């Protein structure tokens, strides 16, 4: 590993000043699990890193009535996974986070680090996308809020500007009676990175029996995690029959442009999108009390 200087800011302001001062020569580090692999493999290096763990108060998890869950960027994945308030307000997050990597990685890796890394093979973006989460960033210029659906821009690329620090993720309450589900599919060993992940949220319509709102997000397939907003209108007001589930799977597969990797070819991933969108929507509908299929 190449040598570097680790800077320890005592406040967020100081961290922002360090970003301004060192510019291209610096990167942020939180839990380090992802970046240390790249450093060890020498595919990435910087002369300076800013140790965000030195800044106190960025790892809180709380529920703010009217706003939703507010999760500090430095909260570890494991802290989010085991938080009773998260389980109560957003069980989809709990369900997904317990499937990320392993306990050790989840004890070190942070939510903010996970999202800002911009790797396409991550599970957490999918549930956060269907829940309509927002990412809050600060810089010496001020505060900025990104809709998560506009946050992921490409392979290892997010909307965060070089001088910005992701400080918090805000997760609005799910609509009443919503059923949610996350399906992670690993095509190699069970504990491998996902070949794909699908999160779905379904609400029953007011009269019951038919689908009200449908939200679906896919991750690990294409170069960025995506909210598939064209699926909602296809299902609204309709019974979630097996035929409609198939149409939804097909419509999802049409929209994604898979990255072929060790976990599947482009064709294979498209086929798996078809299958797992169907399964995730069916399960979310079942949990919403809607008969599906």
């Amino acid at each position, binding site marked *: *590993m*190449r*040598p*570097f*200087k*680790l800077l320890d800011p005592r406040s967020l302001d100081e961290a922002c000043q360090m970003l301004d001062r060192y510019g291209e020569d610096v990167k942020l*580090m939180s839990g*380090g*699990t992802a970046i*240390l*692999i790249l*450093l*060890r493999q020498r595919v990435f290096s910087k*002369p300076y890193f800013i*140790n965000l*763990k030195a800044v106190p108060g960025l790892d809180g998890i709380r529920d703010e009535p009217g706003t939703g869950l507010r999760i500090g960027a430095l909260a570890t994945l*494991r802290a989010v996974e085991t938080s009773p308030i998260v389980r109560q307000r957003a069980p989809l997050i709990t369900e997904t986070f317990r499937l990320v*990597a*392993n*306990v*050790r*990685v989840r*004890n*070190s890796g942070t939510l903010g680090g996970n999202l800002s890394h911009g790797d396409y093979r991550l599970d957490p973006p999918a549930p956060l996308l269907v829940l309509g989460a927002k990412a809050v960033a600060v810089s010496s210029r001020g505060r900025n809020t990104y809709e998560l659906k506009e946050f992921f821009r490409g392979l290892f690329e997010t909307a965060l500007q070089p001088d910005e620090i992701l400080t918090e993720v805000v997760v609005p309450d799910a609509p009443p009676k919503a059923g949610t589900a996350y399906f992670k599919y690993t095509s190699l060993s*069970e*504990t491998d990175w996902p070949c794909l992940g699908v999160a779905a949220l379904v609400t029953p319509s007011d009269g019951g029996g038919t689908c009200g709102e449908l939200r679906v997000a896919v991750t690990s397939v294409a170069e960025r995690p995506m909210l598939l907003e064209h699926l909602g209108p296809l299902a609204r007001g309709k019974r979630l029959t097996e035929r409609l589930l198939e149409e939804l799977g097909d419509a999802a597969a049409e929209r994604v442009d898979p990255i072929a990797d060790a976990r599947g070819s482009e064709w294979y991933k498209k086929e798996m999108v078809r299958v797992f969108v169907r399964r995730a929507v069916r399960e979310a509908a079942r949990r919403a009390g809607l008969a599906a299929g």
Partner: protein
Amino acid sequence: MEAMERQIRLTVNGQEHELTIRDNTLLLWLLRDDLKLVGTREGCGTGVCGACTVLLDGRPVNSCLTLAAQAAGHHVTTIEGLATNGRLHPVQEAYIEERGFQCAFCTSGFIMMTKALLDEIPNPSEEEVREYLSENICRCAGYPDILRAVQNASRKLAARGR
């Protein structure tokens, strides 16, 4: 460029150390090279095999992906810290009784994960054990014996009243 070294205080197995380290020193290297605690092993170096597992403030982490600088001020427990007064920890005894190892390269990691698991869930179901240890890799594939060792350790700790 500023100095790329720092002084840290680190408590390892109950003993406080004052150390001078380079900023890019991994906790694994510090334990093995500086403190000569070589029971912690390096397997994959990417966080997926579990051979380098240590407890940081009681929680299992990959020491191969943890900066020593970020561990400063915290408590680290390694395999060498489990025995007390020359007597092995019940988890270690259970691994011996059940022959929960063959070549033993992965064993420190498995034992540290088992300790963390049983601290968290004293009487885990088989599924909970499998899930918790799912990314600890034993290339000798002694998994059935390891599973029995975890169950044995759980009984021993219960009998001891923790």
